[in-house]
């Protein structure tokens, strides 16, 4: 069972909270084991919660669906270039990993938008 927190925008209704969901001051909003309905997700989002531990495996990649339009070879080149720029950093650190993914996506979308060849 995975315990990596998932960003709130990727949570699907029906998933179950694996641990207590707390707000920024540490107050519990939802107990572990509660099912996350669409309404519940909306409410905790308004409390400023950005991530939740959910029960079960994550099956799809975070950004996969958004950059399927890009030619995989070009995406690979962008990734190589980005890796070079990130070479002084620890890629497995969650913050760095997230930043890398964001930069990858941004660059891919930018190139797609400008019709780069």
């Amino acid at each position, binding site marked *: 069972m995975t315990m990596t927190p998932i*960003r*709130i925008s990727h949570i699907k209704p029906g998933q179950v909270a694996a641990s207590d969901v707390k707000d920024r001051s540490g107050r519990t909003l939802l107990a572990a084991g509660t099912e996350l309905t669409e309404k519940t997700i909306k409410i905790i989002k308004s409390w400023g919660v950005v991530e939740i531990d959910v029960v079960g495996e994550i099956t799809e990649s975070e950004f996969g669906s958004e950059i399927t339009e890009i030619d995989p070879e070009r995406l690979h080149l962008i990734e190589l270039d980005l890796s070079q*720029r990130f070479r002084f950093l620890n890629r497995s650190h969650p*913050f760095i990993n997230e930043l890398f993914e964001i*930069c990858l996506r941004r660059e891919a979308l930018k190139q797609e938008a400008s019709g780069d060849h």
Partner: protein
Amino acid sequence: MITSARELVKNVESVVSLPSIFTRIDALINNPESNLVDIADVISEDPGLSIRLLKIANSAMFNFPAEIDTITRAITVIGTKQLRDLVLATQVVLVFKSIKQEGLDMPAFWKHCIATGILARVFASLRREPNTEYYYLLGLLHEVGRLVMYMDIPELMAKAVSNSVENNVSLHQSELSVIGFDHAMVGAELMKSWNLPAPMCDAICYHHRPSLSLNYRDDAAIIHVSDLIVNALNLGTSGESDIPQLDEQAWESLELSQFVLSDAIEQLELQYDEAVKLFLEDA
């Protein structure tokens, strides 16, 4: 030969002196007996500053519903504490704006600083800091040490640049090994020579190694992280061609989830263009 950051700053003190208007406004703000009109009067002496302040007060940064057309109104909207920081920011930009340096793209340099400032402000507001303009100011100033170094020791800086390429290290690391001190230290010394408060000097001094700061670790951490992200996003450049190392403890201390990043970056992008326009016009 320059042996320390302090010496370097002493050398350039006359060239990079802070315009007196800031000191006067700062004194007025700190004086409980002065009032808004006194402050507005001083600002009005400088038409450029007046126009700039009005523009900022009316900009998306403050989102005020009605148009602000007087300085006193602008001060009320912005608040005196934030006003002080804004005035300082504009004056610093003025000091350095006219500098044309070999090997340094000035507009790109300022874009990097402005973006860092905006992002720092976004993180500060996520952490519920009361004076978010302060973080914009820190972001704007965090790299000025490098400008001073380019101005006064250009050959050494060129050496540092080639050393970083040859030995595959960041420019910042290279400054330390080739010159003996880095732009963060120079920046801090400059702030000191301007009699700016210790928290500012400290946050700038340690923006690459926040964990070393004794008292202002969180502020330094905010700048550290913002600077790193802006580097990754390639918004302007401060001279680093690659992304500098992360002080992981600094990130932990901010107590922010990595999932706030995409929203924070979105915020940055929304404010970036307008902020760049405001500060770089009449360049």
